[in-house]
């Protein structure tokens, strides 16, 4: 196990270097002087020169890359051109919002997607199977931001059941201290149930929107993995021994069908954590995705650069955890 994890970690180094190289080149591939692009056409040559010096753009390219790499290693991602705030502080400020939304979306996808896949597999080719699989196909074919807009129109504008945007209602405000930044957790541990309910109501629409794709994919993967397992000999043996069908499915089959499901959960969770740019934009959710998008609009390239590098690292880290969890779930892997 230790050797497997070590080998997996070693393989990570060239990938991380590649990510840093791509992100570094990103700024230099934008046509024109990055400093002029960021400051706009009206900037004086002196202002441009000051920014070039501040960003180290006057150094040779390989040296610039090495200093970029050094900054990354010391968690120094530069400062936002627009706000002057260090990128790392901006990320720490927004990360809880993205994480909270991703966790709730993933929970919805797990709680609905896995049982849906199991039921579809057990009732293969039945009406319920067809309905569920058509639904999941529709889920992956739909633009999430469109679904988000429709949900807002229905539940926020027409029925007025749920709020359309933000994390917390203005009428409620901060009656609790945002200690961790994960509002739902902060409100709960401080016993502020009014705020808790309000935060939860703000989470519903964006989380449901964001959960659509992972939910649809999880349902399909679970169904296909369950069908694979259900056709195996040991399941027939269990049935022959008279095990109740519910336990055959829930205990014997589901456990072994979970391996591909875990991979998909990891990959999808990694994507969600990467800041759901589109969903966060629709719901004005103050997370990483919306922040990167605003960085693009404002041509705040250190923000875009820092945001992308952070998201890619998180994505790689989640994939690493998935691979390691694989070794725990399937002991055969370490012998390969």
């Amino acid at each position, binding site marked *: 196990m230790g050797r497997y994890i070590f080998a997996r970690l070693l393989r990570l180094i060239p990938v991380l270097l590649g990510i840093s190289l791509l992100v570094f080149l990103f700024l230099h591939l*934008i046509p024109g002087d990055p400093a002029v692009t960021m400051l706009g056409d009206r900037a004086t040559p002196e202002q441009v020169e000051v920014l070039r010096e501040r960003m180290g753009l006057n150094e040779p390219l390989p040296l610039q890359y090495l200093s970029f790499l050094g900054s990354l290693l010391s968690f120094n991602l530069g400062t936002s051109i627009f706000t002057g705030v260090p990128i790392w502080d901006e990320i720490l400020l927004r990360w809880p919002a993205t994480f909270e939304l991703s966790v709730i979306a993933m929970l919805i996808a797990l709680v609905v997607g896995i049982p849906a896949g199991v039921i579809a597999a057990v009732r293969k080719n039945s009406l319920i199977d067809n309905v569920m699989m058509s639904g999941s196909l529709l889920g992956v074919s*739909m633009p999430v*931001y469109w679904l988000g807009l429709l949900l807002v129109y229905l539940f926020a504008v027409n029925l007025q059941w749920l709020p359309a945007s933000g994390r917390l209602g203005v009428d409620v405000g901060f009656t609790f201290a945002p200690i961790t930044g994960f509002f739902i957790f902060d409100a709960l541990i401080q016993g502020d149930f009014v705020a808790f309910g309000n935060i939860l109501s703000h989470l519903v629409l964006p989380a449901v929107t964001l959960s659509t794709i992972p939910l649809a994919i999880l349902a399909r993967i679970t169904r296909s993995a369950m069908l694979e397992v259900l056709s195996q000999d040991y399941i027939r043996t269990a049935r022959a021994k008279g095990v109740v069908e519910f336990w055959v499915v829930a205990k014997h089959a589901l456990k072994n069908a979970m391996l591909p499901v875990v991979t998909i959960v990891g990959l999808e969770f990694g994507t969600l954590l990467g800041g759901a740019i589109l969903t966060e934009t629709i719901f004005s959710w103050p997370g990483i995705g919306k922040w990167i998008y605003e960085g693009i609009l404002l041509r705040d390239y250190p923000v875009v650069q820092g945001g992308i590098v952070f998201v890619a690292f998180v994505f790689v880290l989640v994939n690493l955890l998935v691979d390691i969890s694989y070794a725990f779930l399937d002991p055969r892997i370490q012998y390969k």
Partner: protein
Amino acid sequence: MTTTIAPSRLTRFKNNRAVQRFAESTSGLIGLGLTIFIGLAALLAPVLNPYDPTTDRDYAARLQGPSWEHWFGADGLGRDILTLVWYGLRTSLVIGLVSVLLGLIIGVSLGLAAGYFRGWIEGVVGWLTDVMLAFPSILLAIAVVTITGPSVVSVMMAVGIVQIPKFIRLTRSMVLSLREQEFVQTVRAFGAQPPRIIFLHILPASLAPIVVQSTLAIGTATLEAAGLGFLGLGAQPPTPELGTMLSDAFKGGYSLSAPWTILFPGLFITLTVLAFNLLGDGLRDAIDPKGSR
């Protein structure tokens, strides 16, 4: 001569097991029907719809709901939404097709080279694939468009680049299993050169899964292109594009007061993606019945 060959080819096509399986797959047939419908509609837009989406405006009809005059209603500039959706479909389809073609050509070439020659080429291509897959696809596409500037061509490039690693992985794995098979070993023993082996023997044998992947990729590409359009990084006005239409309605602040401005563009994005997903699923079921469930 041709009259005797043509029916036999048709018969052979009809008797092909994969074709028979496809003909029995309801979802595949629905997908094929939808794809043909969408393709024809996009192709014939200028013939069937006399309006010009870039210039024709009816300011009196601004933000009016669906009516006999404007079946899908009118947008914030008084443009007919049916016309915009119709022409937008053309743009979205062209973006989807061209970007997948780009991803396909580059990805399959690199996958063939990596799988056949192995060694350092495989190492470099594998590294490139891992690095590209480390970025969520929409972010990678956004980064490319930020570099090239928002336009239809940029979106094609961005979405095409995102597709490359998927084609590399698929082709490489196909080549790795095919290169050890007897028919490849035989032509190699007869002294065939690598380009001949790769393009005449290995590529044709790995075509089926590549076709399936390409069909599914058109759906994903259309979705990603529309996403870029929604963020304002896609086709620029006055070019009609479905994602850009949603963006106009959202940013213009009338998406909720005039819901038809978002309903129809989104519906047609969904229909297009669904068509290619159904078709891709049907093709996969037909070509690889064991792998499909």
